[in-house]
């Protein structure tokens, strides 16, 4: 492998894991390690992106991801601007194209976008010079979530390659699942997806994963269980009969863990958790849960992404650009 400071980063945007090579994923994960240390410092702030402006453009409600990006930007001393669907001209019928052009005219350096439509950040990236970061597009991708999940796994278990990771829940409508599958398989993990057949997308096995509808099979031998939020409104679309039955067949509780899972299995969840549905209370708060680590790591990963994209020279990511100094 090339040395990390000599690997080229040429992409303007982070649209999805699909566009990233294994090496590019590594660059972000390695960089995030530095920033993770920064977050533990007495004053967790560096001047790296001073003078840069980052716009958060959120067409879908989000607390966690938006705050995480905002905090990442602030920790790097960038100026931030937040535009949410309820306050934006989107409600007045402005098209995404016009919104993009307007933000562009305000000379921002980066747009972080969450949108309910798959491909919306790709649409945006073709129309603006600013860097675009996908903060979740429909059921397509959520790259920073997958990166922080990979980072958390590596931090907790010391590696990713060869690990067995099971992703459990509504795979069909989950951008977290898709980005996780892409990132983890690329990093050498052995991925299984599990959920009701009605929430399993067609031909997902062609993405290089094992498919099971049996929660026991998903738990057996797994090093990590990444449990997805079950959207309660899916039940209304007749995609599964009842929450009660979902919990009975796919819910993770300590009794089930004890019986079927490896001791020390790592429990992850992208949040927000439906307690008592996909995860029981004791598992969500249990000693194997790394759910809050994921949140902290999320800030480090997002700092790394902002740094790499905005510190992009077009040639290389040079080590000394990262001026981490504790004041």
């Amino acid at each position: 492998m090339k040395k990390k400071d000599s690997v080229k980063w040429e992409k303007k945007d982070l649209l999805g894991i699909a566009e990233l090579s294994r090496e590019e994923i590594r660059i972000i994960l390695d960089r995030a390690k530095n920033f993770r240390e920064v977050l533990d410092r007495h004053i967790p702030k560096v001047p790296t992106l001073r003078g840069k402006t980052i716009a958060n453009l959120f067409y879908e409600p989000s607390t966690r991801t938006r705050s995480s990006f905002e905090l990442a930007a602030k920790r790097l001393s960038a100026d931030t601007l937040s535009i949410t669907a309820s306050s934006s001209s989107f409600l007045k019928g402005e098209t995404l194209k016009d919104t993009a052009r307007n933000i562009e005219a305000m000379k921002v350096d980066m747009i972080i976008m969450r949108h309910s439509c798959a491909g919306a950040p790709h649409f945006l990236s073709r129309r603006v010079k600013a860097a675009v970061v996908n903060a979740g597009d429909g059921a397509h991708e959520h790259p920073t979530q997958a990166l922080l999940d990979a980072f958390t796994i590596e931090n907790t278990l010391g590696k990713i390659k060869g690990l067995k990771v099971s992703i459990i829940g509504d795979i069909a409508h989950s951008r977290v699942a898709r980005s996780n599958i892409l990132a983890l398989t690329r990093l050498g993990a052995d991925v299984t997806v599990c959920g009701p057949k009605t929430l399993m997308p067609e031909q997902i096995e062609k993405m290089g994963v094992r498919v099971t509808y049996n929660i026991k099979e998903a738990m057996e031998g797994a090093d990590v269980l990444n449990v997805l939020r079950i959207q309660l409104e899916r039940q209304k679309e007749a995609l599964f009969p009842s929450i009660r039955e979902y919990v009975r067949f796919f819910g993770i509780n300590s009794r089930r863990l004890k019986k079927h899972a490896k001791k020390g299995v790592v429990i992850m969840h992208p949040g927000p958790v439906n307690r008592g549905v996909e995860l029981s209370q004791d598992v969500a708060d249990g000693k194997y849960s790394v759910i809050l680590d994921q949140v902290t790591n999320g800030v480090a990963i997002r700092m790394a992404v902002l740094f790499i994209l905005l510190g992009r020279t077009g040639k290389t990511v040079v080590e000394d650009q990262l001026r981490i100094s504790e004041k």
Partner: protein
Amino acid sequence: MNILVKNGRIIDPLWKIDKIGDILIEEGEIVGIGGTIESRVTVTIEAKGKIVSPGFIDLHTHLREPGREDMETIETGLAAAASGGFTTVCAMPNTDPPCDNQAHVNFLIERAKQTKKANLLPVGTITKGREGKKLSEMGELRKAGCPAVSDDGDSVEDAGLMRRALEYASMLDLLVISHCEDKALSLDGVMREGYWSTVLGLSPIPAEAESTIVERDVQLAEMTGARLHIAHVSTKESVGIIRAAKKRGVKVTAEVTPHHFTLSDREVKTFDTNMKVNPPLGSAEDVKALKEGLKDGTIDAIATDHAPHLESDKEKEFDYAPFGMIGLETALSLAVMNLVDEGYLDWPALVSKMSGTPAKILKYGRGTLRKGSVADIVIIDPDREWTYKREGVRSRSSNSPFIGRKMKAAVTDVIAEGKVVLRNGECL
């Protein structure tokens, strides 16, 4: 005006003609076809090295007038038709308001006559207002000049009503064109369900949304004896159902669009909204089945489903963009590149799928070069390469994913009802 077309390869599959020779046109009629014809004429078109075919007939065109003249008008649509070699187009009735009455039909025919570019055959609706509730006055539509009825854009959801529609239409010998889509299966889908919809996270439309209705309508046609035409077939399953139905003698015919035999669902991966069509682009396997279907005659015709949309409507998130692409100007080239060059069809078979067979399906006495017939003729340079450029688009809309792509085979001249409407690729 008398016209002499000289030295072309004359192809008329209806009369099994495929030979080098001349065609003489007098007063809108083909008066001579054969070896060397000498005559004093006003216009001579040299067609050496070119193919001389009956003018193409498009079974499926959206002209948008009345209602959305900002997307297309009868005039611009027929100009696009002419430059693509089409001398007749069937105007689909899902305009605003829909074409469900005699006065509307008369309006379309009159407007088309004023353009003098190509002939327009109005397709009426199956149900009043295209609402799927009551039968339209099919007898009057027929009388006013509709060769066919269709609720294109939607299926007639109510199977009982579809049965009555087919029964009534068969009494009038009216063709029923069915858009096959079960909305309960397609829901809010935007692309074909399969590997690519999974990877892209776009709402999927299963192939069965089409094929279950194809099966239903085929059975109802069998029950009623009606002439049924399946619009824009896009799946392997549908091809199989139609093949089996034809074998047992059901009066069913089918069309495929150039985009469905050219593109597959993987093209959606850039989220190009010009790839968003209904029915959605199929899998690579579907594409192959459609070509095989054309080859063995299961699919009778190539029809464009020319569907103009504003750039401002298409330049949106994939989910929000409308379905459809324009196709009149690229149909021939796509057919040549994907069907002739790949060995699925020879030239006479291709010409048949674009002229003679659509005419037969419509019981329309054109699509032939036989002496005495209306002079609808297209002259093609089969080897000429060209690039489909935005500036050159004749349709009022330019929602085509083929813009910028290299094409092969060019329409050079078109004669419609004995008048030259396209000369050396230029609209007259």
